[in-house]
């Protein structure tokens, strides 16, 4: 933690404190398979719950509702329909894109849960719920959720 100007008492009423460090979180076996498949084959994977039969996307080790370990892997998407969206105008240092940018909640083909990701290559006012989308994969992929760059409208969505 480098607190270069720690406690520089700008005024004795307020003291600025800063923390800079990098956290590293294990994705676990299931999410690691999801990410390596994304990176190496540009395929989006879900896992199926043996009890309720739902295909959970992105892939989960267990079904949160049935508390059962998932067994089979199912490829989903890369296309799907937009369920809800927002366009962010308020900047924050934690955002991966400069504003304005859009988020979408997308029901990918063959998935039983929705997928949350960024939207791109579309005019803000053309975004409408139900529109048909397809995943656009990043050029250099490092096994992370941003290996999918964003989802864009398919050709027929543009007609």
């Amino acid at each position, binding site marked *: 933690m480098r607190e270069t100007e720690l406690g*520089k008492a700008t005024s*004795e009423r307020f*003291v600025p404190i800063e*923390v800079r460090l*990098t*956290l590293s979180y294990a*994705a676990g076996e299931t999410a690691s398979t999801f990410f390596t498949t994304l990176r190496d084959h540009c395929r989006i994977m879900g896992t199926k719950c043996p009890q309720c039969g739902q295909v959970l996307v992105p892939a989960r080790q267990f079904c949160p509702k049935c508390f059962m370990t998932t067994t089979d892997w199912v490829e989903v998407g890369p296309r799907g329909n937009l369920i809800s969206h927002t366009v962010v105008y308020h900047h924050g240092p934690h955002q991966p894109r400069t504003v304005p940018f859009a988020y979408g909640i997308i029901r990918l083909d063959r998935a039983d849960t929705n997928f949350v990701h960024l939207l791109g290559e579309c005019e803000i006012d053309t975004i409408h719920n139900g529109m048909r989308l397809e995943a656009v994969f990043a050029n250099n992929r490092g096994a992370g959720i941003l290996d999918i760059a964003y989802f864009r409208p398919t050709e027929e969505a543009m007609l």
Partner: protein
Amino acid sequence: MNELINIEIPMALRWQFGTGRHFSRFIQTLRNEGKILGIRCPQCQRVYIPPRLICGNCYREMAEWVDVKDTGVIQGYTVYYHPILDPVTGEPRPIPYGMALIKLDGADTTINHYLSETDLAKLRIGLKVRAVWRSQRRGFISDISHFEVIQ
């Protein structure tokens, strides 16, 4: 066993800490006059450093400010051989370095601070020490660079 992935996320966060009534006066007095202020509980008469709103033992508000000297007595000590990040410089502190629990003359609580002495044979509880101040004061106890043993 397939490849296991780790997700790296950089954290860069800032907080604006309010110093409040007591600490703002402690900072001002230390920075401007080089004096260390404690505060005394009207009930148990204990003088606390750092100064604060209430005495936890008596649940009484404290208002009597007390000047505390920059000399004191060692109540506990250690010599550090394991580098730890110095929060002021942000660099690992060169080892070995001494640390002590010091009851400053005029205070009833101790402060943990750095000690120049690193020879364990010379260290024991009860030794008298004196503060060695940094040239430039900013109003924090780290304005004292370390303590040195007197005698």
